[in-house]
């Protein structure tokens, strides 16, 4: 493939990926309102379109046309930069996530991924870590007490759980021996005895999976770890002073992060796009994407389900849980995985 074709193919993939991601984000908000509504015995959105399906569009239009207040007490450069940082890096982490196998469209053989780099996992970890800056700076630049408290809490929480999150991935890396997300998924192909899939989850990484899942909930500031926002005590936390489009950016960043985390969990622990293939050739090319989307949807559903079920942690419980439970569990998992793999070799 020449460099020109490569760039054109990349741009096409970027546009499609962004469209799918932003639509997905908008409809996850709809799904969340609908499901939480049903869990709490309410209807959720019903007025705009059938089943309220046009609600995300109405919300989007409202975000664009509402007054964008920039209070005089804020530090303006960082106040404007913070939501941009949060959103740009939340979205960019999608760049290295593969959603399926290689396909051939119009004579071009290309992976279903914006770009296939051999350090994909490291890039995602790096990019999502930058997202913390958006929240910390928003809290500080707003110069409001609620924002500052929310920003501080968010920063401390995210860096605490990032340690457990990083350590929970070490076991997977020992098993697969590569940073490439595509390589990690390829290492999980096949089954034992014809029915049990060789997912990392079944290869003994179930402790790592649950540590990852809990750390991921904390990283994305979702219930039960939503202390940075904590409506009942901090109003809205770090985005109290934001309105209109800037507020929407934090919102989109949060949901885009949910998608990244869900994709990563599917790729690292649940076998990515592997699943039963059947039917004609065109169906066999599409099915992997469907299996992958199904896993991601299951995670998004779990996120919303837990939001509708669990109460919020107290802050000291949150820190204690991260440092005294998840961190030792992750280290124990990595030591045991290392020993087992070394003894087997």
């Amino acid at each position, binding site marked *: 493939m020449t460099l020109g074709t490569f760039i054109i193919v990349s741009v096409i993939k970027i546009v499609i990926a962004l469209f799918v991601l932003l639509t997905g984000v908008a409809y996850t908000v709809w799904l969340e309102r609908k499901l939480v509504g049903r869990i709490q015995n309410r209807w959720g959105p019903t007025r705009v379109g059938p089943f309220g399906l046009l609600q995300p569009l109405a919300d989007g239009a409202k975000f664009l046309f509402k007054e964008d207040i920039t209070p005089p*007490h804020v530090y303006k450069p960082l106040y404007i930069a913070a939501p*941009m940082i949060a959103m740009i890096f939340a979205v960019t982490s999608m760049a290295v996530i593969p959603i399926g196998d290689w396909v051939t469209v119009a004579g071009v053989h290309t992976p279903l991924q914006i*770009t296939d780099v051999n350090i994909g996992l490291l890039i995602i970890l790096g990019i999502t870590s930058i997202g913390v800056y958006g929240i910390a700076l928003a809290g500080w630049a707003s110069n*409001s007490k609620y924002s500052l408290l929310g920003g501080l809490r968010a920063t401390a929480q995210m860096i605490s759980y990032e340690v457990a999150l990083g350590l929970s991935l070490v076991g997977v890396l020992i098993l697969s021996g590569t*940073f490439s997300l595509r390589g990690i998924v390829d290492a999980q192909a096949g089954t034992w005895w014809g029915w049990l899939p060789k997912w990392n989850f079944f290869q003994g990484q179930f402790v790592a999976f649950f540590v990852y899942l809990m750390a991921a909930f904390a990283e994305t500031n979702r219930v039960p770890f939503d202390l940075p926002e904590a409506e009942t005590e901090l109003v809205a936390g770090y985005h109290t002073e934001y309105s209109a489009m*800037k507020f929407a950016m934090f919102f989109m960043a949060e949901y885009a992060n949910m998608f990244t985390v869900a994709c990563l969990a599917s790729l690292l622990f649940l076998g990515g796009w592997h699943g039963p293939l059947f039917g004609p050739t065109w169906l066999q090319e599409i099915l992997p994407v469907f299996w992958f989307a199904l896993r991601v949807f299951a995670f998004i559903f779990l996120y919303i389900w837990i939001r509708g079920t669990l109460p919020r942690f107290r802050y*000291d419980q949150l820190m204690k849980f991260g440092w005294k439970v998840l961190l030792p569990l992750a280290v124990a998992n990595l030591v045991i995985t*290392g020993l087992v793999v070394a003894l087997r070799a």
Partner: protein
Amino acid sequence: MPQNYVPIFLFMGVAFAIPAVTLVLFKLVRPENPHKTKLMPYECGITPLDDARGRYTVRFYIVAILFVVFDVETIFLLPWAVRFRWLGKFGLLEMGIFLGILIVGYIWIWKKGALEWV
């Protein structure tokens, strides 16, 4: 291949353009009615007495320091894990010593109460 990294920056550019363009472009149609009370820092209706950026608890700094220690450890573990099979028993022993020192440090900060949040 180094050109594989180009799409990441392209993506970042597009991801930057979308919010930047909407922020600038929709300035033309957005209403702009500043008002003294509307622009006050939000404190549930009470007029703020002082600046928000006061002093806050030292525990946030302790957490930040612990994060640096353990995150560097994680960064050190990741490449080791990828080359694990290739390094063999030697790699296992080396990392055992490294982790041993870290776990002693972890027990020490636990006993010191650095992980308490009261």
